[in-house]
């Protein structure tokens, strides 16, 4: 059995990891690309809905469970049957997890593409409004089209981590083993996403994105395809955010469309990014952690100060975070960890700071050093006044 503190930490990490994935993707879009995605819900809910839709049906088909039954109406029965068989089949569990995640990535990218193509060339405020509306639309579809994720009643998800409950390490109970396994998987995925985001933002694409963000016209003048780059980053980011939504759905083992509201999955991630520092991946991770920890603590101690206030504590939480966001924007707009210059990938030789200034002398060529800098194919004429 786990102690109360350990359970709290486990719960904290399990909430933190999906949010970290989502805020990192938002940081790619907003921090580096300058794209105001106020419809993060779209990709997050898209990923979660895919988890609600796909793996259960695949497994039901493969196992022949639920023949002649309605997948949505008799969902609880079918999922229980699937889970009972899945517990003893580790390869199948992991296989279905990976297949679903691959489908989720593709679907997230597709959703990003779908929304952005009509409006990618437009100004940021139009983009923001379109994203906001698109994020709402996917929830409407989830609510009104029961075959997708069971409408307002929600739908169960097969548990690809059920096998963990058959082991017992350190005296943990079966349910705890399962939660530890999911949390570990989510944490590892979040770390991989972090490393990928670091790599991406230090790549040429990352630099182009910053250039576009800071001055679109200069980037255009340098021959960068602004619309295309913006489209690319939105597609990447949507795919990543969809992973976050999917992992959260696997963790909670069900999908209900009302849980993917605009406030929880679009506005909270924005606060996290602004708090941590846009365009700094590590900062965003810090911001996310602080935010999630503060919210968890408020909920954890809610019973203590709950009786003293004449309203639901949830709103106090929102009031405080809204006020915090105003203060950040006014007094520390760069966030906790401000943006830093990008370290470019080393191609050979010492890092740029230690590198000698290139000299156009024959001696440096003769010594066989790799020449840094470039030579114009024509002679520059400098006119003196």
């Amino acid at each position, binding site marked *: 059995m786990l102690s109360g503190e350990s359970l709290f930490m486990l719960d904290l990490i399990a909430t933190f990891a999906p949010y970290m994935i989502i805020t990192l993707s938002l940081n790619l879009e907003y921090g580096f690309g300058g794209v105001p995605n106020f419809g993060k819900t779209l990709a997050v809910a898209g990923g979660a809905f895919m988890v609600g839709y796909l793996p259960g049906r695949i497994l039901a088909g493969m196992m022949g469970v639920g023949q002649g039954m309605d997948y949505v109406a008799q969902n609880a029965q079918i999922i229980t049957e699937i889970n009972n068989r899945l517990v003893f089949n580790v390869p199948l569990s992991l296989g279905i997890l990976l297949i679903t995640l691959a489908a989720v990535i593709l679907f997230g990218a597709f959703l990003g593409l779908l929304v952005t193509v*009509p409006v990618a060339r437009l100004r940021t405020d139009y983009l923001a409004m379109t994203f*906001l*509306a698109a994020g709402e639309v996917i929830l409407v579809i989830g609510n009104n089209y029961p075959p997708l994720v069971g409408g307002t009643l929600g739908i169960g998800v097969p548990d690809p981590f059920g096998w963990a409950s058959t082991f017992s390490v350190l005296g943990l109970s079966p349910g705890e083993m399962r939660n530890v396994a999911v949390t570990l998987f989510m944490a590892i995925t979040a770390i991989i996403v972090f490393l990928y985001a670091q790599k991406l933002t230090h790549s040429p694409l990352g630099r182009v994105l910053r250039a576009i963000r800071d001055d679109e016209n200069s980037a255009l003048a340098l021959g960068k395809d602004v619309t295309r780059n913006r489209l690319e980053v939105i597609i990447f980011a949507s795919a990543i955010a969809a992973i976050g939504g999917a992992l959260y759905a696997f963790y909670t083992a069900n999908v209900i469309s009302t849980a993917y509201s605009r406030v929880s999955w679009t506005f909270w991630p*924005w606060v996290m990014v602004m708090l941590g520092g846009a365009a700094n991946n590590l900062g965003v991770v810090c911001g996310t952690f602080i935010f999630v920890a503060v919210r968890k603590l408020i909920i954890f101690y809610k019973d203590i100060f709950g009786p003293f206030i*004449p309203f*639901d504590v949830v*709103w106090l939480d929102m009031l405080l*975070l809204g006020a915090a966001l*105003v203060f950040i924007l*006014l007094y520390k707009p760069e966030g906790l960890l401000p943006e830093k210059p990008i370290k470019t990938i080393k191609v050979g030789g010492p890092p740029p700071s230690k590198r000698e200034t290139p000299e156009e002398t024959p001696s440096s060529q003769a010594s066989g050093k790799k020449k840094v800098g470039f030579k114009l194919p024509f002679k520059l004429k400098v006119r003196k006044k």
Partner: protein
Amino acid sequence: MVLDISVFKDAIVFSSLLTLLTIGLTLTYLTTKVPNFAHGSIATVGIYVALILTKLLGLNIYLGLLPSFMLGGLVAILQYIVVLRPLSKRNASITTMMVATISFEFLLLSGLNILADYLSRSFLILSRYFLLKNFDFFFMGERGVLFISPILVIAITLGLFLLLTKTKFGVAMRATIENPPLAGTVGINADLVYIVSWFIAGGLAGLAGCLLPLWFIGNPDTGSFILISIFAAAVTGGLYNIYGAIIGGYVVGFAEIGLIRFMATLPDPFGAWIIGYRPVIPLLAMVITLMLAPSGITGIDLKRIMRRFGRK
């Protein structure tokens, strides 16, 4: 197959309220150049003014028009002075300003929810999902808001037109919208103009909010749901034109209520299931507008289109 007349009434009330909200949004967009994400929740302030006035104080709901105008206006001024003005002085990016309006939306939304909890716990009145249609008067067998809301739109359009063209302050407002630094050089107090614009915008939102629970269900998050329709209406009409807001408001409003209800009466594959998909309409309106005529209906250059047809 026959469209019920009630659909038409619904559409008229909804579109009129939407138009009031859209005029305000366009006004703030013209001055501060940032779409205000808290605009819907300012309308919710008006909804709760109406609730308190009728249920708590037992007054006529139409007495709430003035207080909700004032309160909505004051909230909008507060938003401008506390959140947006310091940022715009620092030349913050549009995105930062948008996030700032969202943070204000958080404050408003939580404040309204706290108020709703307080009202229901302390005064035992229904403060969520309420309808105040019993507090309306009847005129020719119809509820008053059916007449009041379009009349209000006409009156406000006329008022704005007179303000912007006939008064010195209105001309100064237009000058500031066109070119703030130049307006400053001829002695116009741009800051005052902005504050007045925000006051009018918030006031109109408050008015719309005050009338809304007479016909539709009011809740602390009603405003943030309508926000998307407001944006769609503003974009469809043309974000740079106040009169475009009126066209956009009625086009999107009628599309949202009329079109959906009409499609619901059609046989398969349409039918009643389509009513749930109403929020798709604003997105479609927005995307279609942005693809075909990014500057909205009022931005369409008719002469250019005519010339193009003439050449063929």
